[in-house]
């Protein structure tokens, strides 16, 4: 007998499609970037009054993304997709956010705790990194009693591995302390789940109705050649990047620790460059050996950011591209050098990591210290013990809801599921909070979750219109070999100027900045009077945003407005020779008559 199965997957979902500016689409948590930019551009020039405005902008951001002051220092992936990139340089959104952050932090210390009645279930969050904090924050805001279990004695997780010349220690500490205080999250330090008295089942028995697991990736990835582990990784002088950064953050490795030593760093990612630049600051003579080639646009291109590579190069770090490691050389238990064959390919045709080498072209690099920074892996033994893996020894978890396939009360996210940027983990924390909320309220976990965003195009403007990006001020290399910030933030006039450069490509509905500052009462809309419209199409050429379009109705062409793209600037109104277009809430003719008639 033929029948349909009403599984969740088989139900038709309403299409959820939305236009967003490309930066917001790129941002994993879809932060309201355009809105912030517009609000910044409307700030008063008087610093005292501007401060008030900045606190309001900060409060708005904090509500959804409490870690935003940190993003302002380390993230900036929105800039990669900015429409301005090809026209003079992306809007420096990260620096704009850092500008808000710098003015917001003092206020944050005195910000009042959220007024929430915590009358919902108990939920445990495991891991105090960005994913765990984000989840705990959002659940707490919804009234759940959240306890965060942290394995060490400080919160922040992998954020501590970001060198302090990029993220000042004080910023990190203050932001995290304030999140915990404001959202009212309970913390259990030194609680390593999976060891001693702690396990997932025990937490459940202790009354935690649901668990978010975001333990991150505590173990470094071993160096392989072919499928074999390269020997000698236990020699004296061989470190893993993660451990190296951890020890710097704990103050174990201090200035001149590597004084006069030759350091070889293996890896081509941003973490490898963090390691290399930190090693340089500890006095080392550093060479980075990367498997990938120099051309970032190529399939096998180096993944580290351009700014990192440039910064490292300026600081006197040598970079060797397209070289792997086949042997680690040592003498009397001490590291001596590496044998490095030419890498001819990093990824195979399917895009999988599958490097190939030319063994006839090898060189030997000599050094005193080797730091292997080729990635991290999660604690697989723990995941296996807790029964969270599938038969193929992978994490069994739904990528949309983050629900474990084996234990429906466990949700897994962050680096432990898939290694990504800080903001990727934050997104998973946010999604997990939504899933846990739905799970505990007995709602459908998937309904309406899959959203489709379409990036808006660059407004159609002449090339002469565009302005080039402002220079970023870095301290000169010889003056920045320390762990203090070397990048100068924006001043108020610089920030306003840069915010004004933003083209606001996105639609008004996802911004509403003008309404929030009282500049407009509501978003106006453009109406087309179809009986008057002659279909000439002048409005189409007047509109920068592609919102005015012609459509065929019967034998006639009639102009229409795509409400999702329209900004209601009214440019089409004044261009229309027939007066067929009207802006709601703005009846100029009537106003003119009124004023003329008045005394």
């Amino acid at each position: 007998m033929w029948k349909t199965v009403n599984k969740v997957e088989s139900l038709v979902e309403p299409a959820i499609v939305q236009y967003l500016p490309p930066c917001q689409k790129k941002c994993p948590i879809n932060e309201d970037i355009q809105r912030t930019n517009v609000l910044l551009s409307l700030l008063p020039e008087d610093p005292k009054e501007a401060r008030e405005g900045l606190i309001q902008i900060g409060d708005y951001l904090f509500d959804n993304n409490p870690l935003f002051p940190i993003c302002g220092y380390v993230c900036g992936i929105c800039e990669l997709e900015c429409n301005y990139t090809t026209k003079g340089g992306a809007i420096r959104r990260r620096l704009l956010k850092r500008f808000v952050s710098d003015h917001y932090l003092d206020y944050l210390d005195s910000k009042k705790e959220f007024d929430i009645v915590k009358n919902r279930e108990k939920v445990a969050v495991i891991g105090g990194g960005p994913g765990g904090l984000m989840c705990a924050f959002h659940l707490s805001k919804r009234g759940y009693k959240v306890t965060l279990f942290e394995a060490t004695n400080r919160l922040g997780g992998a954020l501590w591995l970001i060198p302090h010349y990029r993220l000042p220690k004080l910023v990190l500490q203050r932001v995290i302390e304030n999140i915990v205080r404001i959202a009212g999250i309970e913390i259990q330090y030194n609680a390593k789940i999976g060891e001693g008295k702690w396990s997932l089942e025990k937490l459940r028995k202790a009354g935690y109705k649901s668990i978010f697991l975001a333990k991150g990736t505590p173990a470094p990835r071993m160096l392989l050649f072919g499928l074999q582990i390269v020997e000698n990784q236990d020699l004296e002088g061989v470190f893993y990047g993660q451990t190296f950064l951890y020890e710097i953050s704990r103050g174990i490795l201090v200035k001149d620790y590597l004084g006069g030593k030759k350091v070889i760093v293996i890896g081509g990612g941003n973490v490898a460059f963090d390691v290399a630049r930190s090693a340089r600051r500890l006095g080392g003579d550093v060479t980075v050996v990367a498997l990938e080639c120099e051309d970032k646009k190529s399939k096998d291109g180096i993944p580290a950011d351009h700014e990192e590579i440039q910064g490292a190069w300026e600081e006197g770090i040598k970079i060797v591209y397209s070289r792997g490691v086949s042997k680690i050389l040592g003498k009397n238990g001490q590291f001596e050098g590496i044998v490095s064959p030419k890498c001819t390919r990093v990824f195979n045709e399917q895009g999988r990591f599958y490097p190939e080498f030319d063994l006839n072209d090898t060189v030997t690099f000599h050094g005193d210290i080797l730091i292997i920074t080729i990635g991290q892996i999660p604690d697989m033994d723990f995941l296996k013990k807790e029964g969270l893996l599938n038969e193929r020894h992978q994490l069994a978890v739904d990528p949309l809801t983050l629900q474990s396939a084996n234990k429906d009360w466990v949700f897994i996210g962050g680096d432990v599921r898939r290694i990504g940027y800080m903001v990727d983990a934050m997104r998973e924390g946010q999604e997990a909070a939504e899933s846990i909320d739905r799970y505990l309220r007995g709602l459908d976990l998937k309904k309406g979750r899959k959203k489709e965003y379409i990036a808006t195009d660059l407004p159609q403007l002449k090339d002469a219109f565009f302005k080039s990006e402002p220079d970023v001020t870095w301290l000169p290399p010889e003056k920045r070999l320390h762990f203090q910030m070397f990048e100068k933030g924006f001043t108020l006039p610089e920030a306003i100027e840069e915010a004004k450069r933003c083209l606001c490509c996105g639609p008004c509905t996802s911004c509403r900045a003008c309404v929030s500052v009282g500049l407009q009462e509501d978003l106006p809309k453009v109406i087309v009077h179809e009986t008057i419209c002659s279909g000439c199409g002048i409005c189409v050429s007047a509109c920068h945003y592609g919102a005015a379009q012609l459509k065929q109705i019967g034998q006639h062409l009639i102009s229409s407005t795509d409400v999702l793209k329209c900004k209601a600037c009214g440019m089409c109104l004044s261009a229309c020779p027939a007066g067929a277009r009207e802006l709601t809430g703005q009846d100029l003719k009537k106003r003119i008559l009124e004023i003329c008639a008045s005394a």
Partner: protein
Amino acid sequence: MKGDSPKLICFSCKFGWGYLDTDIYKSQLKDIIPVTCSGTIDATHIMDAFKNGADGVLVLGCSDKACHFQTGNDQTRKRILMLRKILQEFGIDPLRLQFMFNVDPEGKQIPAVIEKTKQLLKNLGPLRPAL
């Protein structure tokens, strides 16, 4: 023009003028028409004003390259310069159509700009002298 005071219609861009103190529109300046963008002001609006008894029109727009909608102020500038020529053909002094492209978030300059334009109109005399 009634008595000594010329009738002036002033359009002002919301994104460039007086957005920090919106009260200025409501209290001090009743005869001001805030618009989303100066680019929305059409030649017919300006002609309407003259037709219905205004002695002059003033358009306040954003300064160069500062338009929130990218080129609204440029479009208006072009339109006004062209319209001035047409006004001349109708026997209306082109100076009766004034514009100022600047950014003044607090709107402090607005009363002075209006006063200055009114003074100019006063010197020109009424557009339609009483019969």
